[in-house]
């Protein structure tokens, strides 16, 4: 079966004044449908850059990123917005919820951009949140929630438009180890039970090993090694 994600010779150079910073210098790998892949490596090795490019938030300098047969490098800005809207869902270390909006409103936000009728949005958001054990937090704003709760709201938001690919950039980086474990379990469950493909960036290799099918280890913008841990179901 064709991989859901194919990355070939991916390069990304940032220009910082006169200086050129090579964040990625020729990364190639595939992710199969239903796989849980973790990208690990030292800080500054290009993990976030890679994930942002897959998520359509950033554009590569060269190389290709093909998601479900569509090359992101060839997409217009509005096509990239469409990609972010309906193909991928992203989760960040710092949650990135809108502080003034309640859990339901935060989760319903992407539905506004994808044209779901207004009356259908809160029920759908509430259903997702309830499914993640947040029934008692539906109308709370992020500041009234624990880190674990906030990150689960962020996961719900990433899933609300039914993406084919979940991208998580150090989703447990701001959490204590017990809560971090719960979030990883949630991602694992989504992967196993719904067959959702997950690409996660992690600085904590031990935890990543526990939930992933495969590790991709980066070093200075290159793949240093890939470690197959277990076969996807």
């Amino acid at each position, binding site marked *: 079966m064709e991989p859901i994600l194919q990355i070939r010779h991916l390069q990304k150079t940032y220009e910082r004044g006169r200086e050129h910073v090579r964040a990625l210098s020729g990364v190639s790998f595939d992710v199969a449908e239903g796989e849980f892949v973790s990208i690990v490596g030292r800080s500054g090795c290009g993990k976030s850059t890679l994930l*942002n490019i897959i*998520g359509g*938030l*950033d554009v590569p300098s060269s190389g290709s990123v093909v998601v479900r047969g569509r090359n992101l490098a060839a997409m217009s*800005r*509005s096509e990239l*917005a*469409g990609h*972010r*809207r*309906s193909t991928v869902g*992203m989760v*960040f*270390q*710092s949650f*990135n*919820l*809108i502080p*003034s909006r309640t859990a339901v409103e935060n989760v319903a*936000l*992407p539905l*506004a*951009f*994808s*044209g779901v009728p*207004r009356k259908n949005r809160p029920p759908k958001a509430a259903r997702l949140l309830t499914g993640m054990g947040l029934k008692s937090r539906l109308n709370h704003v992020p500041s009234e929630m624990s880190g674990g709760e906030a990150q689960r709201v962020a996961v719900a*938001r990433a899933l609300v*438009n039914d993406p084919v690919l979940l991208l998580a950039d150090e989703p447990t980086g701001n959490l204590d180890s017990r809560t971090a474990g719960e979030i990883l379990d949630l991602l694992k469950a989504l992967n196993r039970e719904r067959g959702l493909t997950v690409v996660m960036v992690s600085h904590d290799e031990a935890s990543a090993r526990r939930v992933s099918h495969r590790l991709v280890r980066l070093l200075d913008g290159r793949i240093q090694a890939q470690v197959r841990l277990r076969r996807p179901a």
Partner: protein
Amino acid sequence: MKMDEMARMAVDNLRKSRLRTFLTTLGVVIGIGALVSMVSFGTGMQKNVTETFLENDLFTSLQVLPAKADAERIRGQGRMPAGRPLSRPDSIALDAAAVEKIRTMPGVTVAFPEVRFPVKVAIEGREATTNARAMPSVMGGFKPFDKLQAGSFFESDTARSVIISPRLLRNMKFVLIEPDRPRKLTVEDTLKGFRSARPEELIGMPIDIVTSSVDFSQLMRNPVAALSGGSDLPFAERTTRLRIAGVAKQSDGFGQGLFESGVILPMQTAESLPRLGFSSVWDLLSRTGGTESYGTVYVRVKRMEDLAPLKKSLEDMGFGVVSIADQLEDFKKGFLVFDAVLGAVGTIALVVAALGIINTMVMSILERRREIGIMKAVGAGEGDIKGIFFVEAGVIGFAGGVFGLLLGWAVTRVANGIANIYIAREGGAHAELFYISPWLILGALVFSVGVSLAAGLYPAMRAASVNPVEALRHD
């Protein structure tokens, strides 16, 4: 994303930062308020002048002058060539026969020589000087004499009665008590010798008209002294006792100086008074030259449309014609400039407000960078972001327009109130100095929203171009 969706988000955003929204909107409110009060003053003045014209039937009135050259001189355009005799042999006499002829011309309803002369008047020993004017009794059927404040217009041209203006009464230290403006005399007023009176009380009261006349034979012996106002002229004063037939309406401030005389006398009665013709030197000289030519003949036509053809035929006859309706066009041009200046001041205020909008929105984008990044990350297109900010600017503009109109209205009410205190002190009638027309309301709203949208253009573009990766980087 749909428009109503953007509007909802925009309003949500505005509600979340109330103080900032309030202050930004306040800038627009002040700008529009200034604009509305300024422009409404301009249109108010114009409306007043136009209404005064209508009220005095000036659109159906014209004045006939003895010769064309004279009319031009009055308009201040042509110049009398030096050395030309004042009384040209070819000029047609504007005499009683000419007035008779004018009366029969198509469209003419009234024609009478305009006779104006200075008089001293006295009621119960209270004196004042004014210009008297003679009119035929038929004028009682026309504006503004068809409705008097009290009494009625004299019934015949030989009646021994007069119509008196409120302004003259005021100069004679009468304070009129009007039903809509009850006024008590202050102690100061009483000390100054003011006396209050209801207009009706004055009807039938005797009024003394004191006229001066000149011994013409002596005048001709020494014309230089006469024209330079020498004191050795043999003036003869005579007092005629008449009665007050009516008190004219208060005319608003604009008509007063121009179109109103202090006291109006019946035609024949006025002719019988020994007097010094004063409407022009021409009048004076032509009187001495044997042929009796009037200085001016006042003509009123039935309909506005009659004016132009009548003017043409009178001019063809060799007369000079002046109609104030012509001058309304000049007035209007003047007002256009006036409005433009006032509008410019208001516009500057609004431009400042627009800069306020740009400033606030750029600030708000800096503050909301992360939020914009989030929206982009979850799939908002650049058009969506642009739209949200654009609509925010539009909402500020609309709210600013509505409240600005209210502010402008409030300002004009206060200013009008204050101005009327002074007007009343001067004995003038209540005046509306401002006029907020429906067009001004519509224009102010459109302008406010338009300027605000223009101001929102740049911030909206900046918001749309926020780099989500940078906006979301945790630092």
